[in-house]
């Protein structure tokens, strides 16, 4: 695979400058803080409540910003200019994802702090969150590549928000409606199960299964995003 750190860094710096001057999108990073402070002040301190905010952050910040950045590049024809340059698919996708990854990591860390959530195993949780960020970046990329404008992209991320952030809530109905049990296999649900397990010293096998499910979703999303990107390189 043709990867150039110089090109990735150039794309990252360009995205950083663009993002910092695009207030309509950059304001989204503050939303999770408001929600976290609200939960904190209300004294809500359950894992479900913490991860409601965390999963919302992943959808509202990670997927939303990534989809808007990609869609804006498409809307202004700059993505095609990048595609016509010697930057490889990997350079562009990694470069464009690095900024959102960094922003997401910082926002999630601050959100966790503001929530007052002290995970039993910070390292394992950080690893799980890192996998989740990559998954939501890939989903955001897919939304951005599928749509033509920033407006369309912001609408396209709504189902992501509903399915992945609110999906785990459906699990409570699984006794009455067994079909709702499918929600357990969502990466967002696995993240909650993993976090709950960490508090109760979950067996390593269970941790492994949660990670495997999340990684499986992530690989599938990255592959779809890459295929879609390749298709967008041409007008056929």
């Amino acid at each position: 695979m043709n990867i150039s750190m110089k090109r990735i860094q150039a794309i990252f710096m360009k995205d950083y400058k663009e993002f910092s001057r695009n207030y309509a999108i950059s304001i989204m990073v503050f939303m999770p803080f408001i929600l976290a402070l609200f939960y904190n002040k209300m004294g809500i301190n359950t894992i479900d409540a913490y991860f409601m905010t965390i999963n919302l952050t992943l959808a509202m910040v990670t997927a939303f910003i990534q989809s808007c950045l990609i869609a804006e590049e498409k809307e202004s024809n700059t993505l095609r200019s990048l595609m016509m340059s010697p930057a490889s698919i990997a350079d562009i996708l990694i470069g464009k994802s690095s900024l959102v990854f960094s922003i997401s990591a910082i926002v999630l860390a601050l959100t966790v702090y503001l929530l007052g959530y002290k995970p039993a195993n910070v390292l394992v949780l950080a690893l799980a969150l890192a996998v989740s960020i990559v998954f939501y970046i890939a989903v955001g990329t897919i939304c951005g590549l599928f749509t033509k404008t920033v407006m369309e992209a912001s609408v396209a991320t709504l189902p992501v928000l509903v399915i992945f952030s609110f999906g785990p809530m459906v699990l409570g109905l699984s006794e009455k409606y067994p079909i709702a049990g499918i929600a357990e296999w969502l990466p967002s649900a696995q993240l909650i199960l993993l976090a709950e397990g960490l508090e109760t010293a979950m067996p390593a096998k269970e941790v492994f299964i949660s990670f495997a499910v999340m990684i499986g979703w992530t690989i599938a999303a990255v592959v779809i995003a890459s295929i879609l990107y390749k298709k967008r390189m041409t007008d056929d």
Partner: protein
Amino acid sequence: MTMAAIEVTNVKKAFGTFTALEDVSFTINKGEIFGFLGPSGSGKTTMIKILTAQLEQTAGEARVLGLPSIDMKKSENKARFGILTDNSGLYKRLTVEENLLLFSNIYDLPKSAIDEALEFVNLTDARKKKVSELSKGMIQRVTLARAIMHKPDLLFLDEPTSALDPVNTRHIYNGLRKLNDKGTTIFLTTHDMTEAETLCNRVAFLHKGKVRAIGEPAQLKHQYSDHSMTVELMTGEEHILQLDDHTAAVKLSEWMSEKSILRIQTNEPTLGDIFMQVTGSDLQ
């Protein structure tokens, strides 16, 4: 032997039932400035997209710099050409310099390449301006600066001066000639005949997806000329004389001895006239 920069053989491109290009063939030698002339919708941009691997032809063969055009998709080949089309976008929140800096880093160029490119398009003073503050013509010049910044072997220009004023158009023409003198082959699409005559070594007329005529502007003018001249006399009379008619020389000699000639003009067709003659329709 002159090496070919572009070889197109019987290329066809269809979008569903619509055929955008039909049996198109031409060769562009290295170092040439080649004009692809045709009205909007004639297939000019489709041809550029095939040559730059943004589209794949339905049939036929297209080779660019000795490689199948589809290979222009590969990273290592993309640095060999530059492109300016109407869908070459810029980052509006970034300055002119920041836009060029991104691509100079991607192409791994020294910082001086930005200065040279800005000088090329006469925009040195606007380097700190945000793209959102620029006029349409200035945006087109920045896009052109980006296309030529890495001094490509081959440059694709789709209507490069369509939004420019005459002064900047002349500046760009001089720059393109200098670039061409240094070895860059230029593939230019335009519907501006003056531009084609000023810049191009050879031109091809494209109409409804087919190449209708191809050649050097002077050669085409000769080929499609009716070989006549118009003589206007002091009296206001106008006479059209056929150059291959021996009586024309006699008449001319008479008028000259009478000192009654006001103006003599050869009736050479413009490229626009030739296009109309060949296709039966206007270039605009």
